[in-house]
């Protein structure tokens, strides 16, 4: 499913989106398939499927540990694309990974494999727009969205450049720092949201862990929240994982309305 279509559908129903991150292959391929299903059942609208990298500099300890577990269990790009192709839940899939894995496979081939396995968008946290020409070209060829990030320190000029190159949605990093679950909503979230002037859907991520925070972010004007570490924490506990993933997804998605 295309990301654009998903947001159009949500808009028609007056809904906001929950984007859920899991690390592919943590702790196994089959488990990931089940987790994605549980998240979608709970209300996730888009699933970000992390392709683990050995040196994930933009991630905090939670996702680094998940990446290590997945790599240890044998995850690699070949298996990743098979996994993506086997996911039948009716939501857009987004690939999140680091640039070396893409570069190594060949930018063109990587994006082609994404398209062929039903992935609609790609996020590469260590690829700023200045270095993204090859990716943008390949994404255009294969009709895959290239999703870029903006942060509290991105100035207006850069933002405009990013908005003009990105598609799918804009990933708003709500605070300085790496991924990881936190309890509060950063003041900076509201400030960045106010600065983001684009027709693309605005998705806020980094540090959102529960329904209350998510609701605050939505109230501040976001079209979507991205939740990663909070789900990954549940997975790492290996305790009632599917039920708890579904419940947390539901709490967040349902929480949008209430506040």
């Amino acid at each position, binding site marked *: 499913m295309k990301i654009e279509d998903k947001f159009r559908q949500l808009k028609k129903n007056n809904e906001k989106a929950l984007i859920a991150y899991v690390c592919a292959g943590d702790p196994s391929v089959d488990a990931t398939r089940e987790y994605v299903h549980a998240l979608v059942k709970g209300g996730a609208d888009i699933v970000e499927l992390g392709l683990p*990298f*050995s*040196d*994930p*500099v*933009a991630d*905090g*300890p939670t996702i*680094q540990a998940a990446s*290590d577990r997945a*790599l240890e269990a044998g995850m*690699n*790009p*070949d298996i990743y694309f098979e996994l993506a192709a086997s996911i039948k839940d009716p939501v857009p899939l987004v690939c999140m990974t*680091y*640039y*070396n*894995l*893409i*570069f*190594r*496979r060949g930018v063109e081939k990587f994006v082609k494999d994404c398209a062929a396995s039903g992935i609609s968008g790609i996020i590469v*946290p*260590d*690829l*700023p727009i*200045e*270095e993204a020409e090859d990716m943008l070209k390949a994404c255009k060829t294969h009709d895959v969205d290239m999703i*870029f*990030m*903006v*942060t*509290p*320190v*991105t*100035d207006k000029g*850069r933002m405009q450049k*990013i908005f003009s190159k990105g598609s799918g949605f804009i990933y708003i*990093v709500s605070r*300085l*720092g*790496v991924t990881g679950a936190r309890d509060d909503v950063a003041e900076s979230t509201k400030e960045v949201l106010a600065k983001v002037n684009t027709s693309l859907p605005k998705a806020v991520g980094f540090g959102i862990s529960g329904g209350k925070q998510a609701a605050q972010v939505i109230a501040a004007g976001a079209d979507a929240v991205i939740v990663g570490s909070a789900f990954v924490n549940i997975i790492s506990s290996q305790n009632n994982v599917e039920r708890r993933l579904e419940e947390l997804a539901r709490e967040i998605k349902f929480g949008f309305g209430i506040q």
Partner: protein
Amino acid sequence: MQKSRYGRFGGQFVPEVLMPALNELEEGYERYKQDTKFLRELNYYLSEFAGRSTPLYHARNLSKKYGTKIYLKREDLVHGGAHKLNNTIGQALLAKYMGKKRLIAETGAGQHGTATAMAGANLGFDTVVYMGAKDVERQKMNVYRMQLMGTKVYPVRSGSMTLKDAINEALRDWVSNVQNTHYLIGSVVGPHPYPMIVRDFQSVIGKEVKQQIMEKEGRLPDSIVACAGGGSNAMGIFHPFIADTDVKLFPVEAGGCGIQVKGRTAMHSASLGAGEEGILQGARTLILQDKYGQILESTSVSAGLDYSGVGPELAYLADIGRIKPDSVNDQEALDAFHELCRLEGIIPALESSHALAYVRKMADSGELGDLVVVCLSGRGDKDLETVVKLKGVTCEGKI
């Protein structure tokens, strides 16, 4: 060629949140590198605090043994015991001019961390150093040294618990504190403008050599040999000679326990010699990786060379054939270490011992010519525990 590139190498592969900081750093550097007040102050610190210039020492006994005239550039005599302070004092001063209050750094052997601690204490910064937990073990004395100078040392327990992981952790800190913090990278690695800035600050080594060798010999050397981990002492001594194409330049990497891969670990650290193109920690360069692009852990008896990547400019210079990389293994480095101790009464760092080992290995080939300069990048006091523990046995049980 784009300014941020060396051929196809280099670039800025970093999270968006760091782009403003890199731009600010580049602007700051371009501005102050021609500012007479900044330069005067930098020269003051280099001479009065770091103890420059360092001697270009004619190693008579070594020369006699190998039948070629060998000079040692004595970076081991720089304050702190290695070339690292040339860079840290430069960057710390730059950070001060740019109004930063806090310094963070990664360290492998602890030499860069120590040099950062020195510059940080002297120039009044809050200083934090990230160090792989494995390196904290191997280099305890350097940890104490840093702490004595008021630096907080955080052991990094992720990944291979060495330099690469310390860099990752420092990057994470920087991402979180980018407004008041300068990330003081210790080698010619990372995103632009770091490889350029570190090279420029380390070029004082090569500039001095050029002048000193002309005074002593009336000509340029036939070859220059330097060890290469990230590559800062090598770029520093090579850079002023790049245009002198008659001078052969040899970066020597850590061959560890052999040029082979075992599981997710390379048994060596020879990125120039055995690495492949990829993107690591902000730059396109040569790296040790598996077929999917996962970074391999590296191996070396010397913590300062134990790194899975190498500076992009070295990758470029190797690619165009201007420098000729090679490697020596742990045992060869140790043998050279002992030899210099006995022949010259100088205890070299295990890193620098790799450069010395290369001279031993190549002396008979004629490759090096009649006049050789070796960069003695640091002193070996920090390595005594390692050397004593090994008792001459380096790779047993590893391969």
